[in-house]
């Protein structure tokens, strides 16, 4: 193996096909950037799910004096009803992980904290807020078990799952991710087609060299290696550009723009970028080398 000889062949090949090389680098960069961003969105959804599912709980609001749902026809919840609900919740362990009773006074305190800077807090009296059980589930997806057991029972005004609200938002993000992934997929197909064509042109423009190589008994591997390295090098450059794009997305769009504006939620950290970058690089190189290899098998026969 003559590393220096191979390197000079690769360099000459890239220069000879400069416009095609640039086209390959750009399409690889664009398609991989889209691919990387879609992976970043996916990581973002996971981060937010971890962040929020940990905090969401099922709220069981008990009837207060002003409640007008049918289950509250009996008026304000009685102490017996409340005790019964609590013991029923206890019987649902271990699905029910934590049970926390929030009295009217506590509800009022919390409300005042949440809306500390708002005039709304002044207009709400302690009695207007319902007492509730806050229930944390070991598996947030099994909300139905709790809902079917308690919704509509006398003394219970409403059973509320915070997760359902979040899920709508996550579905939106997942939809965006799917679209980005589809576009990335189409772009990757375009990239593969372009590489196939580039290799065909490269094999044709160097048919004199490859013909002589075959004739003097160079192995297939040796004949194809410069072409494969060229494809891998272009893909690496394109992937580097794409990774730079994802890093910029994280550093500018997420850290500078989104994070300061939406402080109530968590955003992906650099670990996610660190995990995505090698996937992008490997995808780019693998696709390029595979496309090149399959093309060359056809055009550089023994």
């Amino acid at each position, binding site marked *: *193996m*003559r590393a220096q*000889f191979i390197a000079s062949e690769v360099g000459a090949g890239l220069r000879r096909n400069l416009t095609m090389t640039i086209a390959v680098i750009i399409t690889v960069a664009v398609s991989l950037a889209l691919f990387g961003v879609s992976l970043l969105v996916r990581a973002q959804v996971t981060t937010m799910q971890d962040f929020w599912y940990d905090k969401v709980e099922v709220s069981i609001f008990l009837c207060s004096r002003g409640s007008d749902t049918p289950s509250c026809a009996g008026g304000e919840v009685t102490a017996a009803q409340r005790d019964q609900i609590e013991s029923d919740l206890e019987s649902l362990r271990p699905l029910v992980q934590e049970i926390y009773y929030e009295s009217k006074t506590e509800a009022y305190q919390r409300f005042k904290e949440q809306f500390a800077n708002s005039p709304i807090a002044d207009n709400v009296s302690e009695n207007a807020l319902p007492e509730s059980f806050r229930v944390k589930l070991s598996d947030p997806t099994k909300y139905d078990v709790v809902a079917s057991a308690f919704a509509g029972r006398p003394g219970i005004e409403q059973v509320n799952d915070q997760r359902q609200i979040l899920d709508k938002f996550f579905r939106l993000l997942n939809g965006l991710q799917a679209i980005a992934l589809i576009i990335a997929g189409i772009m990757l197909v375009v990239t593969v087609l372009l590489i196939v064509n580039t290799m065909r042109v490269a094999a044709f423009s160097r048919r*004199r*060299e490859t*013909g*002589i*190589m*075959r*004739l*003097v*008994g*160079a*192995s*297939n591997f*040796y*004949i194809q290696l410069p072409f494969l390295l060229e494809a891998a090098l272009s893909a690496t450059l394109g992937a580097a550009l794409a990774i730079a794009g994802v890093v910029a997305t994280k550093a500018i769009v997420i850290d500078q723009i989104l994070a300061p504006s939406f402080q109530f939620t968590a955003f992906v950290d650099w670990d996610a970028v660190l995990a995505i970058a090698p996937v992008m690089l490997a995808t780019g190189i693998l696709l390029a080398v595979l496309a090149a290899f399959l093309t060359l098998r056809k055009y550089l026969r*023994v």
Partner: protein
Amino acid sequence: MNPTPVPESAGRVILFESVSKTYANQNRPALDDVSLEIEKGEFVFLVGPSGSGKSTFLRLVLREERPNTGAVWVLGKELNRLSNWKIPALRRQIGTVFQDFRLLPNKSVFENVAFALEVIGKPRAQIRRVVPEVLEVVGLEGKESRRPDELSGGEQQRVAIARAFVNRPMLLIADEPTGNLDPGTSVGIMKLLDRINRLGTTVVMSTHDAQIVDQMRRRVIELASGHVARDQTRGVYGYGG
């Protein structure tokens, strides 16, 4: 997995056993039931009109084509049973020269010959040693740094012969090597091929040059319409051909 018996003469440099070759979308076979042997150290002229099967014969020896029927043995290997990845090893023992030289225009004389060694992974020290040697054999010493377009046709063919011979192959295939050269230059090339033959390399040369064949008085195999029409040990080009 159908072991055909190895013929006694399989050790010959070239052995054709009832070889027929018909190209796709052609009715007439390019070679039709050809059997012949070429022994080590021979110098063989392959003559016959265009389309008689000379090129097919050479392409079969180089395993650029496979026969439809029959067996081609080259340097002790039955080419039909030779797996693809072993072909380069076979070709390293065969030097090839063409009418159109097939040099790389952007490389010097030295680089063109060195290329043949570089692409089979020979170390640089060896290349630096053997390339000047072979350039001396073909009579191109002092012209190492010339480009092909600075050389005459005869000199270009000498570069091609140096490239074919630098590996000291067992067999040299020359496909009309003097076809583009004037008679005076051709004589020089023939002297060179003769010298290579005397160094132990078997030479098979296809040609249309009657004068050369008649002067050399070597074995002549004449092909006509895919058949061996004549095989003489000290032959001439032909009668009225």
